[in-house]
């Protein structure tokens, strides 16, 4: 037996009100419209009695589970009601099965039962709570609603709060969970952003006592959690009574995302953190060929240093060479003008001299020494110590006596190529 859903109906055992036959199994599938439950009641029960109704019986089955089994001769317990037995089910489907065996010795008339669709209170009739906050029952269904300042999620069951979207750009600030220090809302996802100007890293500080979030379960999963997401790394998720992470988190990033996720239950006090922007630092580089002004142990974003080359070194920028340049600590922790370096001054190729020679230096840089010589024995150097030149800081070859003036080779006089041999008379 099966039919379209109906609001009510009657079920009678075979041949009712005559005696039911032997060896019969008959079942009825009862269905009422969705959202309704079923009220099933018996007004007549006259079925061969047996231990546990093992021989003849009428069974009431809901969802594959036997909810009741009737047999015997039953009468109403109340003089004002014809109902002998009744059942209420919060589901809209039910099966009734009548069974008789072979061994009937007496005549039994069977049963008469009726069912009606009844309103189910979805808010209370089931084990699962359908709404996170307020449940409103109506005939055929229910709807959920939320307290003020909460909103109903798209699942139409859970309430949350609007706690996302705050963007913090100040260099210093404080952020806390909703309602802190009162219990935070359940079933919410709060997303915050700290966005500082480039050149600063977000540093978060948290006091242990300022953190109270539903603790992790036995597997270590946080039902409610606080998580920080920087550019290349994540901190957390954190939960528990007392902050479990480092009390100071240096994010190495000028932006930080904060996500506070809560589940349906177990609201605690929440959390409160402080943050500030720490300027990015630039490395202090080796100063072998240069002096840095100002000379500091640590340089940070926007610091400007004047780098002055030591004597004999210069920096070449474009077409211009100079003895100093400026460098700025940039937002990425790198120095501007990092391609510039103090290089030894270049003196170029030494000028040749008449009647003399100079060796070609391997590199004509500051400090290099060259020697001019005259073509002996026919020439000699005008200044005895005038042959040595050193590449000086001004980019010129300089001699101690002559300065930048080149040495002169003077013809040797009065020296015959071969001595005149006087023969003895």
């Amino acid at each position, binding site marked *: 037996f099966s039919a379209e859903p109906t609001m009510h109906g009657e079920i009678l055992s075979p041949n009712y009100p005559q005696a039911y036959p032997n060896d019969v199994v008959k079942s009825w599938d009862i269905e009422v419209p969705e959202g309704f439950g079923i009220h099933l009641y018996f007004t007549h029960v006259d079925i061969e009695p047996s231990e546990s109704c093992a021989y003849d019986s009428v069974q009431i089955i809901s969802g594959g589970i036997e909810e009741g089994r009737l047999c015997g001769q039953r009468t109403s317990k109340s003089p004002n009601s014809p109902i002998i037995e009744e059942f209420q089910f919060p589901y809209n489907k039910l099966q009734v099965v009548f069974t008789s065996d072979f061994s009937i010795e007496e005549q039994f008339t069977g049963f008469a039962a009726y069912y009606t669709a009844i309103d189910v209170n979805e808010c209370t009739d089931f084990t699962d709570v359908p709404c996170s906050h307020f449940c409103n029952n109506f005939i055929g269904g229910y709807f959920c609603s939320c307290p003020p300042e909460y909103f109903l999620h798209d699942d139409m069951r859970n309430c949350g709060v609007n706690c996302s979207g705050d963007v913090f750009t100040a260099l210093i600030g404080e952020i806390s969970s909703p309602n802190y220090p009162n219990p935070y809302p359940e079933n919410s996802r709060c997303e915050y952003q700290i966005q500082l100007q480039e050149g600063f890293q977000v540093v978060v500080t948290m006091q242990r006592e300022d953190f109270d979030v539903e603790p992790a379960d036995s597997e270590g999963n946080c039902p409610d959690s606080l998580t920080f997401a920087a550019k290349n790394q994540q901190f957390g998720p954190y939960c528990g009574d007392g902050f479990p992470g480092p009390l100071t988190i240096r994010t190495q990033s000028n932006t930080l995302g904060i996500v506070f996720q809560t589940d349906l239950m177990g609201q605690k006090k929440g959390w409160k953190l402080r943050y500030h922007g720490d300027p990015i630092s630039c490395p202090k580089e080796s100063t072998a060929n240069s002096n840095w002004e100002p000379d500091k142990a640590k340089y940070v974003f926007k610091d400007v240093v004047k780098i002055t080359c030591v004597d004999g070194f210069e920096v070449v*920028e*474009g*077409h*211009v060479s100079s003895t100093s340049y400026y460098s700025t600590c940039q937002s990425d922790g790198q120095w501007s*003008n990092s391609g510039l370096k103090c290089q030894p001054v270049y003196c170029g190729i030494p*000028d*040749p001299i008449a009647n003399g020679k100079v060796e070609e230096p391997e590199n*004509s840089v500051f400090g290099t020494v060259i020697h001019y010589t005259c073509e002996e024995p026919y020439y000699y150097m005008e200044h005895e110590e005038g042959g040595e030149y050193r590449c000086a800081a001004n980019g010129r070859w300089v001699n101690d006596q002559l300065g930048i003036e080149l040495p002169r080779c003077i013809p040797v006089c009065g020296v015959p190529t071969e001595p005149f041999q006087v023969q003895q008379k």
Partner: protein
Amino acid sequence: IFGGQPAKIENFPWQVFFNHPTAGGALINEYWVLTAAHVVEKNSDPSMYAGITALRLADLENAQRLYTKRVIIHPGWKEDDDLNPRTNFDNDIALVQLKDPVKMGPKFSPICLPGTSSEYNLSPGDMGLISGWGRTEKRLHVINLRGAKVPVTSLETCKQVKEENPTARPEDYVITDNMICAGEKGVDSCKGDSGGAFAFQVPNVKAPKFYVAGLVSWGKKCGAYGVYTKVKNYVDWILKTMQENS
């Protein structure tokens, strides 16, 4: 020279080598060398050679050594101070008069001066030649002469090259109508090329001839756009100076 290639002195026979510091000049006749003022402003007796390709001692010994009679810097050139690097290159032009005439030959030959007619006006995209022994992409100093072909660009292009010096003042690195901006990404003159000629073909002549439209002057960086002294604006001063000192 950035983005250039090796050259021979025969390719640029007007090229004069200035030693200490390395720089260039352009021979404009037997007795006169045109160069940038900043090349000679602190050296009234520059060491110069003509007719060399490679900067080796042996080549210098065989080259024509040019001896200075006098250095004449353009009167509009502003004296520099020793403490700060120069940033204003307006009127960056000078003449060096030689004691002895240069004997001309395949390695020694002057470059023409620009005419004053509009035919000698340059437009963005016009291609000219630069040469010198200045810095390259890889080396601070080179041995062999190098040359490159670079296009003229608008002065605005040079103005927009980013200034990285945080202490630069608004009056630094001014660009005036006495300058030509030229170059393209990767092709440029650089330190050590200063004073060399930015040469263009003389317009409307049968046999190819070159004139000196610009002199390598300055640039904030090397490898993109360089600034050249616009010689056309100084032709009257050049001719008058040579006449008065001959």
